């Protein structure tokens, strides 16, 4: 269980990296944290001709506020994002989700951008990035694209990133101070990928949901905001279990859950509904505090 041979490139600057990507394109794999790529290499499920290791490029790991927006560099390690005071203030949902990502040794190495670029349907970070309407910054030697998270994820392990592009970071616009966040996950064991998880962001005014965003991880092939559910919840009281239940019952018409031998689609749908109801309970409990 050793990787096939590859050519190892180690750019020192972003420009170098982009030039390499321009040259190698689909034949290259970008090595950031390696927590998903290296197992695939070891299993020889991935056999890229070239590995472009971006770990030495300065500045790709920044976590900072630029203007009003939170910028998370693509190579920011999960552990750094999880512990960042800046993230805790500007986008607490990220930290809530990251507590569910794998285990400490993996979080010490795995990167925020790597998780987005991989687009594993069961991963937490893509879901919260969609929930927060993040803008994914993709650079190539010809320029930079800002790809809205909503159009970034195109399927299982498939994104809008082009072969010559490098994901360099994500920007998050601030949400108002009256937003509440919730992230809940069902995983088989502590630290496992999500069988289902919910990311919720919502403005709560006088006990009622205003504008809100609902995204699931692990349920569908890609995370997406569920406009119908968000509309159903808008205006509902947090205490109005019936309204939430109705929104949950509506999920069947909205979701297209992953089918599997051990976990059938109906099960993931059930988990999604129950996660929505748990979100309500959590909001209610937090309001009572």
């Amino acid at each position: 269980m050793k990787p096939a041979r590859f050519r190892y490139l180690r750019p020192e600057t972003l420009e170098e990296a982009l030039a390499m990507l321009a040259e190698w394109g689909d034949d290259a794999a970008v090595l950031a944290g390696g927590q998903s790529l290296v197992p695939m290499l070891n299993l020889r499920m991935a056999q890229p001709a070239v590995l472009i290791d971006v770990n030495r490029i300065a500045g790709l790991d920044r976590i900072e506020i630029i203007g009003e927006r939170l910028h998370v560099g693509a190579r920011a390690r999960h552990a750094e994002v999880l512990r960042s005071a800046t993230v805790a203030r500007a986008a607490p949902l990220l930290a809530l989700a990251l507590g569910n990502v794998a285990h400490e040794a993996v979080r010490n190495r795995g990167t925020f951008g790597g998780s987005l670029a991989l687009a594993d349907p069961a991963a937490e970070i893509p879901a919260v990035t969609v929930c927060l309407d993040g803008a994914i910054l993709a650079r190539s030697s010809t320029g930079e694209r800002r790809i809205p998270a909503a159009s970034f994820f195109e399927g299982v392990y498939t994104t809008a990133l082009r072969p010559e592009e490098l994901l360099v970071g994500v920007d998050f616009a601030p949400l108002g101070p009256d937003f509440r966040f919730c992230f809940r996950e069902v995983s088989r064991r502590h630290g496992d990928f999500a069988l289902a998880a919910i990311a919720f962001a919502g403005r709560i005014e006088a006990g009622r949901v205003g504008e809100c965003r609902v995204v699931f991880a692990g349920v569908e092939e890609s995370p997406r905001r569920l406009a119908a559910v968000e509309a159903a919840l808008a205006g509902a009281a947090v205490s109005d279990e019936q309204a939430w239940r109705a929104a949950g019952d509506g999920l069947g018409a909205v979701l297209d859950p992953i089918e599997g031998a051990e976990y059938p689609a109906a099960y993931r749908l059930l988990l999604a509904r129950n996660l929505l109801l748990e979100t309500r309970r959590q909001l209610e409990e937090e309001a009572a505090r």
Partner: protein
Amino acid sequence: MTSAPETTAPIGMIRTDTPAIGRSMPRAETRRLLAGRGRYVDDGAPRGCLHAAFLRSPFAHARFTIADTSTAAGLSGVVAVLTAADLAPVCRPWQCRSGAFPGLVSPVQRALADGRVAFQGEPVAMVVAESRARAEDALDLIAVDWEELPAVASLAAALSAEALTHPELADNVAWRTEFGSADFDAVFAGADFVVEERFAFERKTGVSLEPRGVLAEFDPAEGLLDVRISHQMPHQLQLHIAEQLDLPIGRVRVACGDVGGGFGIKMHVYPDELATCAAAKLLGRPVKFVADRIEALATDIHAREHQVDARMAVDGEGRILGFDIHDVQGLGAYSVFPRSSTTEAMSVLRAMGGPYRFEAYRARLECLLQNKSLTGQYRSVGHPIACAVTERLVDLAAARRGEDPLAFRRRNLLPVEAMPWTNPAGGRMFELSHHACLDAMIGLVDLDAKREEVRAGRAAGRLLGLGFASFVEFTATGSQAYGAAGVKVAAGDTVVASLEPSGSVRAQASASEIGQGVRQALAQVLADGVGLDPSNVRVETGDTRTAPHGGGAWASRGAAIAGEAAWRAGRRLRGEILAAVAALVQAKPADLDIRAGEVVEVATGTPRMTLADLADLVLFRSHELPAGVRPQFTVAEQYHRDDDPFLPTNGIQAAMVEIDRATGFVRLLGHWVVEDCGRIINPLLVDEQIRGGVVQGIGEALYEACRYDAAGQFTSGTLADYLVPMAGDLPEIAIGHVETPYSGSSVGAKGAGEAGTCGAPAAILNAVNDALAPHGASLAALPIKPVSVLRALGDLGAGEAP
């Protein structure tokens, strides 16, 4: 513990205190492991060592032709590409045969498959190269033409015989048997009621954290094959390597360094390991093969694939009358060599109803061949299945009577006064303590409080359950099992002990250290046997060049069998020492004792001579010894237990669970074990070994499964698919003991290593069913899957069975 083990050896006096036996002591050698100085197979390699990788079948069943190996062989760094034809001259095929299973159908197996593969992962070619990575590169370059054949995967498919595991056979039955008591029909006909259930158990495997690994070196000048291997029984393997490679047994050395877990996985003959030895002989260069995790999960022996239809008859007073069991076992492509996979099923049949009195028994068994990996003797062989079936039937019967399940058990458990007794399943029961364990468990659990917690929780809408499982585990198997069937597996053990300079004791034992702490246990026994501190006793194991032939590590035998050999060796050495000192100081041996490494007068405790001084005298200045005093300071004791084929042990486990209705997950809130393994040599080690066994049982109940699809494709190939229990998902596990020493030995120890695994799945199954019962739901399949739980509750539609 204060009482002494009685000695049967007529040597010296019997101690009235045992300072080391029964004492919680850390294992001295773990200092080395903690410092990262373990010596596992993959930790070393001689200069010029080559690395092997195997091309394995991607199909469950196929014919194949190897079209080209030259491209692979031409790759830089590749030394050889070997196929069945290359190995045939140096490695004989083998076939599982056992007198215990007359008519067993299991075709011939080879180190590398020859033209047809019968399970996914079966090795078909081998690359030997300068590095493992390079060997794997070459695997990709071997051209094979495959012709896929219909595969047999599920038990139903195997039974139907629409496809055949091996085309030359008439059906997929490897072996079948049927037996029962004469009055079976009458007893069942006279029952007040009969409870019945169909149980399904999925395959699982051992997942020793260190995968299997072997390093073989052949010296053509001496004709000597030197094998370093991670294995549970080096002597057994030495024999088989010698036979298959046509070498005199004295020309094969098998040595185990540190072994990173075994659990029954590392006690069989594996094609890739033999191929590695054969390649070393063929090439005359050291060759190493270490299974990676993918290979380990797919090709380590699997276990526990059974479908069991079971019935239990009960009379009007709530007494168990009998059991009726029909077991269908999924064996895999071959019956594993040399012990035979059918042993597991026979173990199920023998352990049925183990804790209880009953009159009648009928057992029917079909062991089926499948195009799947081989199965074998994984920890607690067969017992967890018998226990889960028995204990679930007991709960069903108690429920039918509207009775407390513990009251039902108390009435039916085999009482002390009814033993010894051979039950209708053929299990010889003696020196068991079911009722004492039951009482101790009630206290350990604080049962009234827990039942109140369940009641209150249920009133608040929670799905809580308590489950219990009494169990009997047959341990320390004697030669009546394998030896009598013509299978060359040693059931006895030998300890050779020497008094060394400075008065310490060194011993060689035929037991195997695989992490269970047997060396520490033997050191404690030897220490008491002689009369010195265990820190001055060093026990070595695992190398056929130095250790006498013996059993190794299987069937929880270390303390019971090697421990007894150690006690006897210690007493013999003590006798030699006392006789020598008595002659030197002109006293009677009976008036002397050895305490803390010093010979003293029994009556007064007055020191007469230290072992250090004595060793100095005898080993270096023997000319000063009086005439006729020629003590033997190296002694050997070989221990075979003749009377009892097995040592039964017993206990009871309790589990408390909560079902999360939002997910179907089962959460363990607590787990309790009270067990009786006879004399406990080191409680610190025994307790955590039981906990470790329980955790493997928790895995069996809730997480672990080796899954195949209908085409025989293995779908549990990584540790992301095959889930083992982790620290974050486990409860605290409380352990209690009842000690009923085995009266047939001096030490009185029985097996302790498998009790945890034996009862845990049953206790959890019963706890889950207790939680489901108020909702009219029940389950009878392990592992218990979240989706199954929700379907049982009616929260999820049936759909395709996962």
